């Protein structure tokens, strides 16, 4: 079930990323759909699953960039694992907490990628700090919206299920 969920989330992230770049040329400058997906998946709490999800998503992201293959794989692995460990210790009650968590994860991921690029590339090109902040904010917002939508969808699914069960009992 978890693998199915991961595959569906991965397909959704890839589709959203490709559509975003197709419709808005500067899409990758201010949002990272792959990172949002990794953090939201890691919030479920299994650190091994989050680690593997981060690795897979990061390597897919690497395919669509010109840097050394594995930059985002490395960064997203760390982000996925750390988020899952945090989620095991924290109780997230407000959606704004998700916003803060995704934003922080975005800054951390961009810092890891920039640090690795600085070490590995002879002439590294580092991201603009302003765009790092914008990307963190937009990722946070997107993560919060998806989180709210997921909670609402789960609640309505639960209500529908309960309704069906009570009808069955009455019958």
């Amino acid at each position, binding site marked *: 079930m978890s693998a199915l969920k991961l595959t569906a989330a991965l397909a959704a992230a890839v589709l959203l990323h*490709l559509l975003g770049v197709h419709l808005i040329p500067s899409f990758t400058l201010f949002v990272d759909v792959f990172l949002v997906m990794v953090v939201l998946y890691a919030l479920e709490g299994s650190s091994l699953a989050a680690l593997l999800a981060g*690795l897979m998503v990061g390597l897919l992201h690497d*395919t669509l960039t*010109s840097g050394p293959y594995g930059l985002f794989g490395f960064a997203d692995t760390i982000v996925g694992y750390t988020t899952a460990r945090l989620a095991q210790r924290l109780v997230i009650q407000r959606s704004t907490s998700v916003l803060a968590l995704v934003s922080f994860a975005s800054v951390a991921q961009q810092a890891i990628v920039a640090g690795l690029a600085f070490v590995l590339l002879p002439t590294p090109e*580092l*991201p603009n700090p302003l765009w790092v902040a914008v990307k963190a904010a937009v990722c946070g917002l997107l993560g919060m919206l998806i989180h709210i939508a997921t909670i609402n969808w789960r609640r309505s699914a639960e209500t529908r299920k309960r309704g069906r069960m009570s009808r069955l009992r009455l019958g």
Partner: protein
Amino acid sequence: MDERRTGWVLIVVLVIQLVFLAAQGSRQGDTVLERLSLRFLGPGARAVASLPNSFGGFREGLRTREGLQEDNLRLRREVEDLKLRLMQLTDIENEAHRLGAAVRHATPPLGRIRAVDVVYADHTSWLRTLVLYCGAEPAHKNQPVLSADGLVGRVVLVSGPYAKVQLVTDRAAGVGAMILRTRRQGVVRGSGRGSGGLELDYVPLQADVRPGDFVITAGIDGVYPRGIPVGAVVAVAQGGQLFHKIQLAPAVDFGTLDQVYLLDYEPLSAEIMSPDFKSPQKEPAPGVRP
């Protein structure tokens, strides 16, 4: 699995990735995993690229019939002008061939050009790239990629019909180039400021460089043939004790690329590149004893 074991898994995965990253070095885009990944993402990118760009379509829809008629008229005139220009150039080309034959000088052929579709374009982030769909005839590594305006980049990864391109504006890309007016050579690189601009390095302070000078490929790097437009000089400053600091505006608007051209070009023939290559023995001129 308990958390302690997961921690060990994390360390092992990270170490493997670090070793993998370090081992790649300059062999960018040459991993089996990346090729597989591109093969997996390519069809999705192609399907999305075939969808209409709704913003562009909406804009087009708002254009009046009058506007389209004006465009049509202007394009017809442009075609007529270009036909005349082509006739003049064909004449010049024939003359150049005749003169070349007289002095036994063979101009290297530019190579065959074929159009391919851009299915994914990220030209704004600092790790910018293009993904191409090349159809039944796949691209090959280091193949030059052009647009009608000039140089786009080179193919760094091929996976089936899909190819990944390193743009000329990439900080890691280097192109042997020269200033058209003075033939002074240098190396063009991405400026690395997120602006998508270019820099021309290693041009000595004594060299004559002016804003507005055109820069073309020099054909000295073993990847690109000579004469492809790269950009134009926009600013010249003293970079250090030896070289100018020259900024260029790229010849190509990377935001408008939906189709590019792959150039089948061999800088050195396969025979020369072979380790068994031996230079041919010169035949003695008639009447001269060997």
